Structures are given as structure tokens and as C-alpha cells.
């Protein structure tokens, strides 16, 4: 362990310090140094001592002070005087005191809790990771299961996080930049944009490209990652699974390339599957059977040596004919020929065949490498996916098909392969904390060692009649649910006899009117809350629906003991260092803003749930020994942070130590990074639990009139078209999709005038990217203002940028822009409000994980007047 980055001592009487802390402009949470002179912050830089960002920041991070010092920030608590709520309706804000605000909120919450705590719905933004713990703890203590992250999970999380969790024990996946030679990106920009470990990844990806890593980027648009790719593979929006399955087929059936030892030891490929699609099970133990070729009989998977397990063949066990899962997969894949995929994806068959061949050959199945004296399998290929490819109704299959590429060649969490972000940690050498390692669960399949959301992705929960308003307890594979806001939520709740209705919304910084789907639907759901209290930095379009707005401190005024923990979220993957930084206040707020973490503690106290709150902190932060919170004492959030740090790093390393040192770090071991080779767990290449799950959900849903389409619940991934692909409208001929801009975070950063200025100068940030030839065909010129209209008649307006760098059928729009409110005047009117095109109901989400379908078939027409 080493001690790093002492706070620069004050020279003379003048206040002049560099304070180590953590960025809050996106969920990448890079480590920063804040330069304060005479009580004014004058510069933010990356903290070179930290592994998170490695001393460098993205454009957003360096611009943080323009957000911090924005005169449009909310500075005092506000109460609405106009009882009528709606889009564009002036709430008639009146400034009130904190006491008045807290009294009212606490009183309402106290009553609600006594009545039914589930009636509280808590929603928080994904931008501010530090809000996770206090909100989770508050919800736990209050007793409501109803938490959400606005658009966060619906747009990326339900597919990407679920499957990364089940297959990689992590929140997301990334190529092992240090060793990977061939990476295929499916709708992901890791290392070339925002998001998890964004700045660290930018440097590591650049190193990899400079080293010669080939990068194939499958994306309807050539920006960010695709711009740096060795090869850009444009495809029809949402057809990623077809390409990935065809590549798998080329490898397995045309070339015979797969990593048999890996498949036997690390997956359920050898598990015998009966005609009912289910595992053949050992009668006594109930464990799945494999065919042990050394004795020519079926044995429980943990009774046979992996080398002896049959992957192929037909067998009969107890008179039932069965086959290994791999055999089924192999047969299943055979139908996905490159020629089949070509008309679906628009990618020429010869290219698909070549990509599959290159991936298979570059995998070097069977090779090993010695890293820091430790021998591990060397599979320098990775297929990664993120928001783009999984943002469809076929979310699960799309993502799973991509990950199959890794699983087939054994590159999952092996050197050079597709890594989860830090799925295993042995802890700090002195304390052994935080320690977590994936472990085998039911049927030998992997349970994550660390997780972020409500419930671990595996084992799968038993579906039940919903008690959660998002019905995550019915659709158990979803992380975030549309039904807190959807057009059909009341209908769903009625159908499923939800025993209560939400009454109070506790909102933390989300602008859900912009971040989920069309605003009309979301607004309607907001008006149905009896009371909304919103912690905000700015008055957003959504805070206009609040009854009370509480001015929050921003990241430069707040404290957090774990801005970068869990490590599966935003600590860079691969070899390097474990790094645990903190966030600490660098200046005092200029107005009456208070830290939401402290306000929640105060509210809990006023509600009379102090004991529950402390218990929840003890449980969620895993506080131990002398550092556990006593139930009857009121703690400040700084004290809670102090307790967590001491629990993990020893009594001498509390909050004060961290405030001086900024962070603690220690080296990663190959056994941690390439944990999969060392840990006896398996992942499912055959999702045996899925058909069963489908039946269980259907058993609850179908008697109540909700059809569950079973073809989404097959154990092996398939290609299913999106609603947009099946839209018959002849004048709707383009697929609108959105992407995350490199200089913007959700809907938040358009208010930052430096970022806004940069976005205005960018050819794409605030425009609609249309293929130049398509434009010519339609008589649309660069700079034309157009209407984009969906089948449902929803329309958004924007300026066209004609480009060669987008698929002829695609229409690329940077996400979450188009503010219309006055609370963020810099952001107002900038960019295109893509989300307004999205329908929000059961028919437009994955029936498995409830991920929203984010592509829309649209008609484009020139707006009147129209030329810029």
C-alpha cells in the first residue's frame, strides 16, 4: 500500500489548496484535484495518483466549475403555489425555509409510512453515483421496494447489466485492453466516450490501438468508437443478434473453432438437456447431469471431471433421450448462416464470414500467457456490447448472442478477452476488505460477488403477483421497470391486483420527463402522485411537477466514502491497481443548499425511523465491529462515511485520513483480474431457466389477460425483429436511434455553457445525422429543419446534418437533448428530443427484461420555412 497525494499545504495565510475528490459530471466518477484559491474554485484537474481517470479528465470533467457556479442553480427550498400540474404550467414557486420544507415532507412521509410504506416511490439519477447509498438506505429503512433510476435501467441496464451480471459477474464488460488483439464492439463505445471508467478506458483503448489491437465496430453510425475502428461495420439498427449468431455459426459449424475445455469447465455446455428443454437431473441430488465419457454414463456435473464431459452427441439417460447443451447450441446455430443474416443486417455475407473467421482465429484457443508469474489462458479477442445493441425488445438475445462469441472461444474474463469490470477482489492486503468473489449457486451457475441493483441477477427470483409497482417481482429479470411511468401502468396494476398505488415521489435529480420516453406519458404519471418532493441542482422540466424542491449540494460540496465502489461499476478493468477514492467537499455552498445525504438523515429522524436507518446503513455498507452504527444515535453522513472507511481500511484510516490522502490503492493480482480461471463457477450458454421462467410468469399473467410471448423465453438466443422492423408504413422508411454524445451526460450537461458551446460547434451533437445519399433522395439538404414522425404520430423537430457516416436507413440523434424549460436557460432549445418518439408500454419493452425498444421507424419531412 502506498500513501498518495497529500493535500498541498497552505502557503502563508492565503487559501491555496489542491483538494483530492471525485468528479460528478457523469457516472464515470474519475478522481479529481480541485484547486481552491481564496475560497473560490479555479480549476479542476485529474488526480494523477488515482487509477480512476489516471490524472486525466474528459471534456465534461474539466468543465465542472461551469456547472458548479451556474447562477441558475436552485439555492433555496421552494414550494409550489399552483396546485395545477402539467407541462409548461408555472408552479408558482415560493421560497420557504428548510424547516418548513422538512416539516412538511417529514409529516407526509410519516403518515404514508404508517399507512403503507410501499406507496413511496424513490427515483434517482444515474449521473450522481453518490446518491445511490443514501437513497438505497433510506428506501430500505422506510420499507419501500419501489426504487428506480429514471431512464437509466430502461435504456441500458436491463439487458447489459443483467447479462453482464449473469455471464461476467459484473455491471458491464470491456475488452482486456492490455492484451486484447481483436475487439468487436456491438453498439458500445468503451474507451471512446462516456460511461464506466470512461477516462481510464480512453487511455487504455488508445494504448491498445497503438499496440495494434484491431477494433471492429458494429454500429449504424460511424462516430466515437467507429471513428477509431480498424473496420466500421454499419448495420441496420437493432439487428446485432443476427450478425453475432452468424459469426458464432461460422466459428462453430464452418470452422469448428471453440474452446472445449473452457466450455466443459466454465459453462453449462456439457449439461444434458432433455426433450422438455430442461436439464436432466440426478434423481438423488437434483443436480444437472453431464455425460461422463470416461465411464459412459451420466453423472452430476460436479461428480465428473470436466475433461471427461461430452459436449456433443445423443445420449439416453433413464430411457430419456438427451443431448449436451452445446450440441443443442451447435445445431441451433446452424440455421444462422451469413447468407441468412445478410438481408437482415444489410452486412454482406462474405464480410460476416470473414468477421467470424477472424474472431475465431485471433482467439488462439488453447494458448496461455504468463502474467506476473501466473499462467492464465490467453484469448486475445473480445466481443462487447452495451446500450446500443441491447436497447431493443430483443434485448436479451441481442446481448447474449454477442457474449456467446466470448463464451465459445473461452475469452470470458481470460487474458486478452472480454472482461467484466473487476468481478473478484481479495481486498486490501492489510484488511482483506473489500473481498468478494463470484461463487457457484444453484446448478453450479455463477452468483456475482458484488452487485448494484435490487437483487442479484442469478439465482432468478420466483415470479409472484407484483407487490412492487414496477412489477420487477413478476418480471424478475428486469432491473428497472417502465411501469412506474408507462401509459398502461394503471391497466397493469389492475390486472395484477397491485394492492396499493404510489402516492409520494421522492425524486433525486432525475429529469424523467426527458430521460424515459415521450413526455406526455411520463407527465401523466407524474400528475397522479399526490405529492412530489425533488432534490435538485436546477429546476428541470420534471421539477415543475414537484410540490417541494430541495436545493441539493453538488459534487464539489458533498461527501461520499465510496464514489467508486462497487468496483464492478467504474473502476477500470484489467491489470493495474485497486483504487478507493473518496469525494469530499471542496467549498461551501453559496446559497442555502444542503447535502441530500444529510437531509435524508434529518428526514428519517423527523419521520421517526432513525433506528431503521442506522440498521440499513449497517447492512448495506457492511459495517462491522466497533464501526457499526448504534441504533439510537443520530449520525451525520460524514460519520457514516468515516465508519465505512474504518471498517474497510482500519481504524487509522477514517474520513480524515482520506480527506488528506484522497484515496487508497493497492496492486491487482492476476488471480483477481483473471479470476475465472481460478474460481470454480460456470455460466449458462444455455439458459435453461428461461423457458421455465416464461411459463411461471405466463401462469400468473395469462389468466389475467396479458399474453407472454414465449419465443422470447427460449434457452438459446434467436433473432427477433424489433417493432420498428415490422412497421409496415411505406412512408416511414428510416430507423431513428439515439446515441450517447461524448460531451454530454444524459440531459444534464447541456446547461453547462462550455459543453453547450462545444456541442454547438460539433457537427453532430445537436443535429440529426442522415445519410447524405438518403438526404439527396428525399430532397433534404444539410442544415434543413425537419419533422421526424413515428407511427403513433409523435413528432420531434431538428436540424439535419447530412453525412456519409451513417447507415442509409438510420437516423442518428444524440440523446436526451431538447430542453424546453426555463430552469436551465443555457440548455433550453438545444438539440433534438429523441425520447419524445418513444412509446412507453408493455408492447414496446422486452417481455423478458422490460428494456425499452429504442429504435423507431419514422417519416422525415421538411419543416416549413426550413433552411438554416
Amino acid at each position, binding site marked *: 500500500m502506498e500513501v498518495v497525494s497529500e493535500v498541498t499545504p497552505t502557503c502563508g495565510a492565503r487559501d491555496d489548496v489542491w483538494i483530492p475528490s471525485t468528479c460528478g459530471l457523469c457516472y464515470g466518477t474519475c478522481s479529481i484535484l480541485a484547486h481552491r484559491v481564496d475560497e473560490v474554485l479555479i480549476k479542476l484537474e485529474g488526480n494523477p495518483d488515482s487509477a480512476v481517470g489516471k490524472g486525466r479528465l474528459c471534456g465534461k470533467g474539466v468543465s465542472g466549475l461551469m456547472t458548479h457556479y451556474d447562477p441558475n442553480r436552485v439555492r433555496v427550498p421552494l414550494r409550489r403555489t399552483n396546485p395545477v400540474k402539467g407541462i409548461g404550467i408555472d408552479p408558482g414557486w415560493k421560497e420557504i425555509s428548510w424547516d418548513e420544507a422538512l416539516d412538511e415532507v417529514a409529516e407526509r412521509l410519516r403518515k404514508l409510512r404508517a399507512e403503507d410504506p410501499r406507496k413511496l416511490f424513490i427515483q434517482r439519477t444515474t449521473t450522481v453515483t453518490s446518491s445511490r447509498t443514501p437513497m438505497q438506505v433510506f428506501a430500505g429503512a422506510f420499507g419501500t421496494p419501489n426504487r428506480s433510476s429514471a431512464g437509466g435501467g430502461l435504456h441500458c441496464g436491463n439487458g447489459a447489466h443483467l447479462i453482464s451480471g449473469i455471464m461476467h459477474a459484473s455491471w458491464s464488460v470491456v475488452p482486456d485492453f492490455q492484451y486484447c488483439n481483436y475487439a468487436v464492439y456491438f453498439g458500445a463505445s468503451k474507451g471512446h466516450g462516456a460511461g464506466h471508467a470512461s477516462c481510464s478506458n480512453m487511455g487504455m483503448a488508445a494504448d491498445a490501438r497503438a499496440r495494434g489491437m484491431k477494433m471492429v465496430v458494429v454500429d449504424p453510425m460511424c462516430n466515437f468508437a467507429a471513428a477509431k475502428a480498424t473496420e466500421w461495420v454499419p448495420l441496420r439498427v437493432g439487428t446485432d443478434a443476427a450478425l453475432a449468431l452468424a459469426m458464432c455459426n461460422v466459428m462453430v459449424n464452418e470452422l469448428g473453432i471453440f474452446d472445449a475445455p473452457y466450455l466443459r469447465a466454465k459453462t453449462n455446455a456439457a449439461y444434458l438437456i432433455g426433450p422438455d428443454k430442461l436439464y436432466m437431473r440426478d434423481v438423488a441430488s437434483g443436480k444437472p447431469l453431464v455425460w461422463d465419457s470416461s465411464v459412459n454414463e451420466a453423472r452430476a456435473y460436479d461428480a465428473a471431471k470436466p475433461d471427461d464431459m461430452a459436449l456433443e452427441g445423443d445420449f439416453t439417460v433413464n430411457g430419456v433421450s438427451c443431448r449436451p447443451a452445446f450440441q443443442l447450441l451447435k445445431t441451433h446455430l446452424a440455421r444462422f448462416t451469413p447468407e441468412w443474416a445478410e438481408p437482415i443486417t444489410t452486412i454482406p455475407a462474405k464480410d460476416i464470414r470473414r468477421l467470424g473467421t477472424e474472431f475465431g482465429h485471433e482467439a488462439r484457443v488453447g494458448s496461455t500467457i504468463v502474467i506476473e508469474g501466473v499462467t492464465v489462458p490467453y484469448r486475445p479477442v473480445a466481443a462487447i456490447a452495451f446500450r446500443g445493441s441491447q436497447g431493443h425488445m430483443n434485448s436479451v438475445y441481442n446481448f447474449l448472442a454477442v457474449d456467446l462469441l466470448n463464451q465459445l472461444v473461452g475469452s470470458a474474463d481470460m487474458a486478452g478477452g472480454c472482461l467484466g469490470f473487476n468481478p473478484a477482489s481479495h481486498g486490501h492486503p492489510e484488511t482483506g476488505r473489500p473481498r468478494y468473489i463470484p461463487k457457484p449457486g444453484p446448478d453450479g451457475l455463477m452468483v456475482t460477488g458484488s452487485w448494484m441493483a435490487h437483487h442479484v441477477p442469478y439465482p432468478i427470483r420466483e415470479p409472484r403477483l407484483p407487490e412492487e409497482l414496477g412489477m420487477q417481482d413478476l418480471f424478475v429479470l428486469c432491473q428497472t421497470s417502465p411501469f412506474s411511468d408507462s401509459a398502461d401502468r394503471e391497466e397493469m396494476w389492475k390486472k395484477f391486483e397491485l394492492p396499493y398505488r404510489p402516492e409520494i415521489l421522492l425524486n433525486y435529480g432525475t429529469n424523467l420527463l426527458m430521460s424515459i420516453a415521450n413526455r406526455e406519458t411520463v407527465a401523466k404519471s407524474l400528475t397522479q402522485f399526490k405529492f412530489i418532493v425533488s432534490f435538485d441542482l436546477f429546476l428541470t422540466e420534471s421539477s415543475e411537477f414537484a410540490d417541494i424542491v430541495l436545493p441539493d449540494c453538488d459534487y464539489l460540496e458533498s461527501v461520499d466514502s465510496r464514489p467508486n465502489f462497487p468496483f464492478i461499476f467504474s473502476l477500470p478493468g484489467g491489470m493495474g491497481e485497486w483504487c478507493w477514492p473518496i469525494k469530499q467537499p471542496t467549498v461551501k455552498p453559496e446559497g442555502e443548499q444542503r447535502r441530500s445525504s444529510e437531509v435524508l438523515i434529518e428526514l428519517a429522524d423527523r419521520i421517526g425511523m432513525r433506528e431503521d436507518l442506522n440498521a440499513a446503513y449497517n447492512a448495506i455498507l457492511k459495517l462491522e465491529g466497533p464501526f457499526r452504527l448504534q441504533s439510537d444515535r443520530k449520525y451525520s453522513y460524514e460519520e457514516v462515511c468515516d465508519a465505512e472507511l474504518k471498517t474497510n481500511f482500519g481504524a487509522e484510516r477514517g474520513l480524515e485520513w482520506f480527506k488528506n490522502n484522497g484515496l487508497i490503492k493497492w496492486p491487482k493480482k492476476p488471480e483477481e483480474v483473471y479470476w475465472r480461471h481460478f474460481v470454480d463457477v460456470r455460466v449458462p450458454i444455455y439458459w435453461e431457466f428461461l423457458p421455465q421462467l416464461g411459463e411461471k410468469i405466463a401462469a400468473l399473467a395469462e389468466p389475467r389477460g396479458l399474453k407472454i410471448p414465449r419465443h422470447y423465453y427460449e434457452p438459446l438466443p434467436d433473432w427477433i425483429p424489433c417493432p420498428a422492423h415490422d412497421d409496415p408504413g411505406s412512408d416511414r422508411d428510416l430507423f431513428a436511434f439515439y446515441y450517447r454524445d461524448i460531451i454530454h451526460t444524459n440531459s444534464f450537461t447541456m446547461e453547462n*455553457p462550455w459543453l453547450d*458551446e462545444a456541442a*454547438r*460547434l460539433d*457537427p453532430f451533437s445537436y443535429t440529426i445525422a442522415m445519410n447524405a445519399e438518403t438526404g439527396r433522395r428525399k430532397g433534404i439538404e444539410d442544415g434543413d429543419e425537419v419533422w421526424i414522425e413515428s407511427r403513433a404520430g409523435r413528432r420531434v423537430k431538428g436540424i439535419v446534418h447530412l453525412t456519409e457516416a451513417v447507415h442509409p436507413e438510420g437516423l442518428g440523434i444524440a440523446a436526451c437533448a431538447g430542453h424546453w424549460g426555463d430552469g436551465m436557460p443555457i440548455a433550453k432549445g438545444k438539440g433534438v428530443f429523441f425520447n419524445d418518439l418513444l412509446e412507453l408500454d408493455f408492447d414496446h419493452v422486452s417481455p423478458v427484461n422490460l428494456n425499452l425498444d429504442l429504435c423507431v421507424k419514422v417519416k422525415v419531412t421538411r419543416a416549413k420555412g426550413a433552411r438554416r
Partner: protein
Amino acid sequence: MSVTSGRYEQLIQDLRAEVRPQREWIERQGLLLIVGHFLSGVAAGTWLFSLVFHFPAGLAVAYAIAALSAAAHLGFLGRPARFWKMWHARSSWIARGFVGLTLFLGGGVLYLIPIFLSASPWQSGSLIAQAGYFLALAGMILLLFYKGFVYSSSKGVPFWTSPILPALYLAYALRGGVAALLVICSFNGINLDSSALGLLELWIGISAAVMILFYLGVMSGSSPIEQYSVRELLRGRAAVSFYVGTLLVGLGVPIGIGLTGLGAPLSLGAVALVGLASVIGDFFVKYSIAKAGIYRSLTSSPHWRDKSAAVAGVPPLSVKP
């Protein structure tokens, strides 16, 4: 002032675009610079021909025009105090222009006072007046020449970096001088050798027309940015001032009247019209050329595009300006 000002919005639009017009020397206070340039040329030309034709009123008018030019320049710089900073002026064409204007104004006053003030402490022909004469003459020569070089040394605006411009601007300064004399004469009813002047005017006018055509011809065969500037001049933002101001009024009218004047002596009114039109044309040639100035584009650097394109494995596109 706020960032939503029109100028800021314009700048953002310009920075977005692949071709960015120069606006600093044409819009807002920038217009004063063009006026200053125009006036200093007319002043020098008028002074020259007033000397040639021994026409004291013309000298006085030239001096007044030069003073106006100085005022316009200071107006462009925004603060009078900057005049004093200009004393740092050394080795650039602008510095030469400043020196020229200073010599001209300083020398001119020494030379003119005894001509117009009988109570002058020194007399015409005295050493002081002689010194003034030569200082003003030196200033005049600098003023005639410097402007074209100011433009032609502007490497950021390819349209201007032509050796034709100094010659063109010299020609226009001379013509402006003749034209000013014609105007003064006709207004005062003085009959200088107007046919000689008219002939001179015609000759310079035709030369200027030839030079402009030659200039545009060369430019339209140059790089895409120059071509774009030519397009600005012929079809774009500078087209109206070019066609109406430079060509029709500035060249068409004087040459047309001048040609009819070859047969019969021109009336005073016609002479005045020739002069006025020429002076207006003199202004608009500078205005149009300044307005058509487009900055050199970075992404059009052939080197960068070729190398990048080669590595990216795509055939380089021809530059679309």
C-alpha cells in the same frame, strides 16, 4: 453584454462551418478600417495629382481626406489612446502605413500652412515648407503603396495573398486621386485640363478593370478557398457590392462616360459624375475584396487529408469548400 449577442451567434456559426469568412475587417467597426483604407488611398492620389496640376484646393482636400482616414483608423481601433501605442510601430506594412500617414499629416501641414495662411511664420519655398513638401511626398508614396501589401501579406486569407493586389490598390488610389480632383473641379467650376484628366481616368479605369479580371481569373484557378472567395464575390455575400459598386458604378459609368468623352468634351456635370462614380468604385473594390475574404481552412490542408485518408483506407475526396 451577453453571450447571446448576434456577434457571438455569428462566430459560433462561422466556427462550425468548413469555410469561415473574415468579418473583423468588414463588419461593425471593421467597416471603418475599409473606409480608412479607402480614404488614405484617395488622399494620396489627390495629393499627387494636385501637385502635378498645381492645384492648392486639391491639396487641402487631400489633407482633409487623410485626416478623416486617420480618424476612421482610430475609430476602428476603438480607443484613441491606441494612437500612442502605434508609436511602437516598426516593421510591418501596417506600420509603414502608419508612418506614411504620420509623415503625410505632419509634412502636409507644414507645406500647406504658408499656402493658405498669409500670416504663417514661414513662407512657401522656405526650408520648413520644403521639408514639409518632401515629408508629405514620402508619406504619400507610402500611402499609395502600403495598403495592397497589408492585404497581400495576410496569409490567413488566401484570396488576398496575390501580388496583383498591391498593383490594383495602387491603381485605384491613383484613380481615386484623379476622380477626387474631377469632383472638386466640377463643384468649383474650375476647368483644369479636364479632358487630360478624363483621359487619365479612363486609362486607369480600364487598367483597373483589366487587373480585376486578371485577379479573379487567377484566383478562380487557385485553391478551393480562393475559388470560394471568387464565388462570394460573384454570387455570394459580396456580389451586390461587387456588381453594383465596383463594376457598374465604379467601372461601367466612368468608362462609359469616358468613352463618349473621347469624341466631344464632357460637361462639368459629366466630369463630376465620372469622378463621383470612380470614387465610389474605389471604395467598393476594397469593400468587396475585403468582404470576400475567407480564412484558410485547416481541414483542407492537403497533407493532412491525404495522409489521414490513406491510413483510413478511403480514397480522398476532392475538397468541398
